[in-house]
């Protein structure tokens, strides 16, 4: 069998194992949580009779044993049916599709923002090590990485949306407007603050990492040689620096997929953005097992793909790894 095919099959196998593991773990966690989905669904103190509560439990299959429930879920999943969400009263698949697309737009913008901006700032800061600019950037990054992203989100909201009125207070479309009349620019306008809030988590990581790498590169022998040849600093960075730090930066970027997902929960809640993050927090509060499992699988695949791409790119960028693999 060709090595590439073998590699692909191995990867697929690993992904399936991962999904199984994640689903079992999620299942166990939700089952052992103190949230009673019937209470969460009906409201804890309504005057609904015990008889009706039993009806609800039976209707949603909540009165069977955990093992039975898990196996039912897996069997349905293999038939393409991810179950019904008790929170939204809709099929889980439908919820995942619509919300994933919305989240994807948000996350890609935030990801690009944190990657590009982070990289630029990191390079500049590393090149001008010790300067006031560098010190400023370092402080900025340390502060950012120590503050919770939802707090920053709230601050941004209060400043830009409430005080200055430059940006909307949330949502992905303007208030009260029919979707047929919403323009592309308006959608972008609504995306900016949430994307910015979401990118905050990833940016400082990227900046500091890139900055350190540039400093390391500038201290190597070949750069010393280049300086001796009379190259100026920026040419050195362009010729020798960028290529060397490109792949650690890219690996870092792709590995930050998982943080994106976690951060999106908070950012989406602050800005009432209808993505997977807000669905996740609603599902968590109601102990909505099918939806939680669906989102857990979704995010596991997402992160896995991110890391996989990072691995592949690493191979492409770094000839050593590529050739090392072939010689085996």
């Amino acid at each position, binding site marked *: 069998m060709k090595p590439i095919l073998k590699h692909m099959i191995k990867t697929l196998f690993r992904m399936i194992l991962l999904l199984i593991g994640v689903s079992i773990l999620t299942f166990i966690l939700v089952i052992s949580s103190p949230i009673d989905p019937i209470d969460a669904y009906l409201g804890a103190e309504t005057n609904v009779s015990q008889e009706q509560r039993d*009806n*609800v439990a039976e209707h949603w299959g909540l009165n069977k044993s955990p093992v039975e429930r898990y196996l039912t879920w897996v069997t349905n999943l293999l038939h393409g049916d991810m179950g019904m969400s008790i929170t939204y009263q809709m099929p889980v698949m439908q919820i995942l599709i619509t919300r994933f697309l919305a989240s994807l737009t948000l996350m890609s913008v935030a990801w690009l923002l944190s990657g590009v901006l982070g990289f630029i700032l990191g390079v500049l800061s590393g090149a001008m090590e010790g300067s006031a600019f560098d010190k400023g950037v370092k402080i900025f990054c340390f502060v950012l990485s120590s503050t919770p992203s939802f707090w920053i989100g709230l601050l941004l909201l209060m400043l830009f949306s409430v005080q200055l009125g430059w940006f909307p207070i949330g949502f992905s479309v303007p208030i009260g407007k029919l979707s047929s009349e919403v323009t592309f620019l308006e959608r972008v306008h609504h995306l900016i603050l949430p994307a910015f809030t979401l990118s905050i988590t990833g940016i400082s990581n990227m900046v500091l990492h890139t900055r350190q790498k540039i400093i390391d590169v500038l201290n190597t022998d070949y750069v010393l040689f280049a300086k001796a040849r009379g190259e100026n600093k920026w040419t050195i960075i362009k010729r020798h620096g960028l290529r060397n730090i490109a792949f650690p930066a890219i690996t870092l970027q792709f590995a930050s997929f998982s943080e994106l997902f976690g951060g999106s929960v908070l950012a989406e809640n602050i800005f*009432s953005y209808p993505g997977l993050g807000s669905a996740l927090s609603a599902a968590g509060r109601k102990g909505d097992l099918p939806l939680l499992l669906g989102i857990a699988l979704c995010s596991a695949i997402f992160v896995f793909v991110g890391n996989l791409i990072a691995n592949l790119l690493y191979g492409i960028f770094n000839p050593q790894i590529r050739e090392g693999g072939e010689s085996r």
Partner: protein
Amino acid sequence: MLKKIRLLMILLIVTISLVTGCAGNEGKNIIKDSLTISIGSEIVDGNYNPCNGYGTYGYDLFHTSLLKINTDLMIECDLATDYQVSDDGMIYTFTIRDDVKFSDGHRLRPEDVVFTYNTAKNSGSSVDLTMMEKAEVIDANKVQFTLHKPYSPFTRTVALLGIVPEHAYKEAYPSNPIGTGPFKVKQLDIGQQLIVEPNEYYYGNQSQFKQITFLSIDEETALAAAKSGQLDLVMVNPEYAKETVKGMNMQAIKTSDNRGFNLPCIPETVNAAGEIVGNNVTSDPAVRKALNIGISRREIIDHALNGIGTPSWGRFDGMPWANKEPGFRDGQVEEAKALLEEAGWVDTDGDGIREKNGLKCEFRVTGRTDDLQRYNLAVALSESAKALGINIIPEAHDWETCKQIVRNVPTCIGTGDYSFIDVYNAFHSSYVGVDVVSLSNSAMYSNPKVDGYLDAMIAATSENEAIELCKKAQYDGDTGANVDFPYIWIVNIDHTYFVRDGLDLGIQRIHPHGHGAPVIQNITTWTFTDR
């Protein structure tokens, strides 16, 4: 290189300002014929199916029911022109109006009513029709319900179940309801906003607004949203009620949403499952009465709820079935102390806590962790009870645990919806057995006379009769729950909103249990008065 970067930055800034400029003003000028409202996220979830529980708290925008609950909380006819109850209380017959159309122009038929009830009964949702055996059309314009057993609160169940059209009930019904109510869906962005417009076929009072937009805003950001000036009504947590927002005023609306603690009325014992039920301290009637008259509810509200709330004297304050007799005042510290002394509770060791036969006058109470208010109330109650020599130990636990131990450790409970079945659930001794696991009658209170009234209440054939019996169960001049004090009720929560100046919310029916959403129950009567 640097020049290129600088150019890039400038380009970026220019693009951003272009985008913000182009997107323009977003409804900063509120036109008087449309409203923008935020009352929580549930209304934007896209689940508007009454058969699945939408509207069971009385504020269905799209449907109406056979009966309705008026501003005095009494039953009136709506889609039905009148109704009869058989002498044994098991058969209810409603005559249906023949001049009503759904929002798609189709006529409402009695068959739609039967369809609605049968669908709701089997939906596995919060609609409780377990008492109904069958529903059928008779005489071409009447619907007859046969119950398994007499159940006088059935009128309340009927008033809170909207009617859906059989011909239009498909998979996508929840997000696209077709009803006989005042509004229909213009546009729904699930999780974000719901835009509604008036239903031209509605037979009742038409709203003066051409369009109403409901937004889903996170509770913490609601205040920021209010300050942005883009909303006409924002529900906020009572903690923020003391803030000011330009162009808006704060309104606190009374509710029947109460908070109090159950006080187990039987001494501690172990049940068949090995759980401890009953409480040796609260089982003494003197302790229960002393607590009720000795604490200061106003003080507790000031400390735990920022002063927002109305003192509560009974479980049903504000409802037509509340009995205010014999009534009592609180803050009577000396009288409470005298009561306890007389009952044998004396502080012999000078630690501030009374004892009786070696038992300290102290007990734990719980507040559920997912509602900070309840724990705050537990702490404030404990502070207030100290003056009486009673030591209440507040604890915070998750709701599952609170429920599990509620018959031994009192918890902060809240009730208050539009059905008087609550009176039965509060006091009937059928819930008292030591092996019973239920929130109903968690005080394990039993009084044969009260049971008698409650049984008669369930079998009553008219609301007025049922309500009279509810009142007797509370106090019939001689005995009753109002003098046995199985609970201590502290406060009726106020629902707080920021309302645009000039927006008149009409006469608000007292809000039931639940967050601030019920404010829209009379939205067709809201108007903008001239500013």
